[in-house]
């Protein structure tokens, strides 16, 4: 998936359920549009509920932007596996990927809205996290 405006922060959605991840991505596309690199991943390697590091790495690669990538996660393993995936990235990319402390659906829409306006990664994360503020 490529973006028309690769300068915008990319958004990655990680859920235990592939249906939730895909549905949240659909909401982002419909509500925010195509100006933001976007990828989703969900489910374990056997197709059950869960998350897996390889899938998250692939999603980060798909949504990659020079401006960085914001990851939205649901519960427990989604967060720890995302952090593990970030640690496995090449060093020059590691600092440009942040996991947001925000609800996965609402956070994804808000983060993408912020990104579509050209905001930097820190502002995208801050805006998504306003939901818990």
């Amino acid at each position, binding site marked *: 998936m490529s973006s028309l405006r690769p300068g915008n922060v990319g958004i990655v959605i990680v859920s235990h359920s592939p249906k939730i991840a895909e549905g949240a991505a659909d909401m982002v596309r*419909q*509500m925010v549009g195509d100006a933001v690199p976007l990828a989703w991943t969900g489910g374990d390697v056997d197709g059950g509920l869960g998350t897996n590091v390889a899938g998250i790495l692939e999603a980060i690669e798909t949504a990659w932007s020079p401006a960085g990538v914001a990851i939205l996660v649901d519960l427990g393993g989604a967060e720890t596996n995302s952090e593990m995936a970030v640690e496995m990235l090449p060093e020059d990319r590691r600092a440009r990927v942040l996991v947001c402390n925000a609800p996965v659906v609402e956070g994804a*829409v808000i983060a993408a809205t912020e990104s*579509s*306006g*050209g905001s930097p990664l820190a502002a995208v994360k801050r*805006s998504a996290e306003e939901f818990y503020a």
Partner: protein
Amino acid sequence: MHDANANRAAQTFATLTASAVLVNPVGLHARPSVKLTQLAKGFTAKIEIALAADGPWTDAKSPVKVMRVKAPQGATLHFRVAGPDGEAALAAMLGLVHDGFGEA
């Protein structure tokens, strides 16, 4: 020379205000909020919205804050704008509301 510096420091932009009635059925809910925020972000000017002429004012460039305004259909949305592209910003924001955020 001192005068020139003083003039530059004192350069400010007039605050412009206007209002428009929300005509789209859902009012200022999720999708319209995203559109309003995206439009606002395209301008340099400071843009704020409120449900009353005397505030409280909300930053129109913050998607979370705009959604929390929860303005229903029929509500009057007030705008307060200040900046170098303030006039264009105000016209664009009013246009978006008049057009029902493209979904009326």
